[in-house]
């Protein structure tokens, strides 16, 4: 295995991890505030569709991304309305959002573009441009630094950098700000927060809205950065992998990043090496492609030790009288 192979795999890992990372942080913030969100997948899907459709119509990818974030936030607020205001079951509300997204994206796409539930292919300014970091070309031939900087770090869409920047930001927000402290408290013991005169409802809506923004970015990157257009069910279970990564990381931002990088790496390796020989035994391509899912099961079946969710997670808060 030479250096170019490693560079290519890590490069691909960063791209594939980006939607997972956004979705994982989105779920993390929402669940830290005590609102379980199974609907990450659905929000990503709606965002992916909106980004592609609006970017195609307007010819500008950033208008598409903005629209995707708005669409995703609207769905988040629906989830919030059902589970915070009306105290409905959070899991059911999330599942409903997934169903709604899977159906509505195809119906609207078919009516709008008449291409069988997909958007037309994006080109030019409607696609997310790849950023070349400064000096990337100049440093390309420098040993070690060249491949690392020019080959891996440079040349991604803006949202890739935003995603990884979101990790320290989320950490800082959760553990170093007053808002974060209250947000975590509301997920552990909402009654205490309420007693101290802070609105549980407002905090939870805040968390759910942030979750919507991040899911919107995840979906937008999927349809305008990773591929050029929306196709039916293009999230392909990434929202659920993000949920698994979040539990794997025990609801903490930095471990969440490593978890999604692991899932991204497995997918990149499965794409690159379709048949791996280990000790004379050939692993077939099917085994490689199933690896992320097998790993999810193995990890969740207890390898992480005890993963304890926020104590008030999944429960609507009812004020005592």
């Amino acid at each position, binding site marked *: 295995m030479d250096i170019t192979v490693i560079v290519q795999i890590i490069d691909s890992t960063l791209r594939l991890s980006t939607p997972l990372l956004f979705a994982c942080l989105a779920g993390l913030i929402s669940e830290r505030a005590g609102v379980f969100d199974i609907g990450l997948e659905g929000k990503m899907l709606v965002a992916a569709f909106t980004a592609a459709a609006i970017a195609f119509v307007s010819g500008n990818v950033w208008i598409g991304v903005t629209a995707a974030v708005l669409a995703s936030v609207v769905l988040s607020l629906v989830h919030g309305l059902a589970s915070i205001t009306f105290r409905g079951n959070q899991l059911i509300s999330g599942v409903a959002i997934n169903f709604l997204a899977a159906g509505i994206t195809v119906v609207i796409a078919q009516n709008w573009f008449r291409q069988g539930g997909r958007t037309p*292919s994006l080109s030019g300014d409607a696609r997310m441009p790849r950023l070349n970091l400064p000096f990337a070309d100049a440093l390309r031939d420098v040993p070690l630094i060249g491949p690392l900087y020019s080959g891996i770090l440079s040349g991604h869409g803006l949202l890739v950098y935003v995603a990884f920047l979101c990790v320290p930001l989320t950490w800082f927000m959760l553990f170093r700000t007053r808002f974060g402290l209250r947000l975590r408290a509301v997920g552990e013991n909402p009654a205490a927060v309420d007693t101290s005169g802070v609105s549980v409802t407002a905090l939870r809506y805040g968390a759910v809205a942030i979750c919507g923004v991040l899911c919107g970015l995840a979906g937008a990157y999927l349809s305008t950065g990773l591929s050029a*257009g929306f196709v039916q069910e293009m999230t392909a279970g990434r929202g659920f992998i993000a949920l698994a990564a979040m539990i794997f990381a025990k609801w903490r931002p930095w471990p969440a990043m490593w978890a999604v990088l692991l899932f991204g790496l497995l997918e990149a390796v499965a*794409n690159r090496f379709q048949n791996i020989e280990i000790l004379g035994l050939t692993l077939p391509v099917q085994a490689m492609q199933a690896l992320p899912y097998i790993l999810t099961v193995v990890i969740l079946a207890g390898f992480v030790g005890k993963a304890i969710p926020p104590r008030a997670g999944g429960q609507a808060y009812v004020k005592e009288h």
Partner: protein
Amino acid sequence: MTSLKTLLGAASTLALTATIAQADPALMYDLGGKFDKSFNEAAFNGSERWAAETGGSYRDIEISAEAQRVQFARRLAEAGANPVVVLGFANEPTLQEVAPEFPDTSFVLIDAVVDLPNVRSVVFAEEQGSYLVGMLAAMATETDTISFVGGMEIPLITAFACGYAQGAKAVNPDINVIVNYTGSTPSAWNDPVRGSEIAQSQFSQGSDIVFAAAGGTGLGVLQAAEDAGLLSIGVDSNQNHLHPASVLTSMLKLVDQAVFDAFSDGPGLETGVVRMDLASGGVGYALDEHNADLITDEMQAAVEDAKAAIIAGELSVHDYRTDSTCPAF
């Protein structure tokens, strides 16, 4: 998810039974959707051509889950559609089950063989068409490395890969042909994100021409090739126009002709196995204004020679499906 689809499916079959006219032909698409710009879309174009030329009307239906295959095929036959054209190798068991229930209805299966008295099975000599585009790729490559992205690893798709590799090695015995498959579930036909990633990984291994035989996934492959400034080869339909000057050529498979013929022959059509190959014009390669600058006269002459030799029987291209081996791998 699945239960929702079943519900929607049930609703659409109800609508179907209500509106269909007697003895109109019907067409059932495979997974990947009617507008995949490839296999299914070719069938759609064929039926549209039939409707335009004859003024007739036809019924078509898209499936969205494996479970709907039998259900929808049976509904179409029950509603009186005749003939019923069913697309895709995965429908072999579908017709095994449904065709005997409707002995008076003619069925046409495309891409697989079912030996029943009321079924016409249309199979294509994909290895011959792939051989020709493999030759073109080998002549156009500058790195002596070319690649292939298949949908699922099934004999049909491996036959594409095998023909492609044979054609390439006929031009240059030392050429390196990288063969990858997208996945092992039906979503492999509709995952452009993964298609694009696989193509990029092949480019990093030195490939400069990629042949995609992967339905909707192929759109991601073609896009990745254009983004990288390299060449790609489309499949089934003529995909040259999708990325002009980046799609080297397309391996044509005249599914539209097969559907057109079936619709024209009407109820009671001749059954048995119909083989569409180079000799009958059922497969080929696409040459139009979008790739005219990519294919030189010498390349075209070499391919035309090979085509003539195959038709005359002087050159035989091995079909992977006959013995599950490939001399070029």
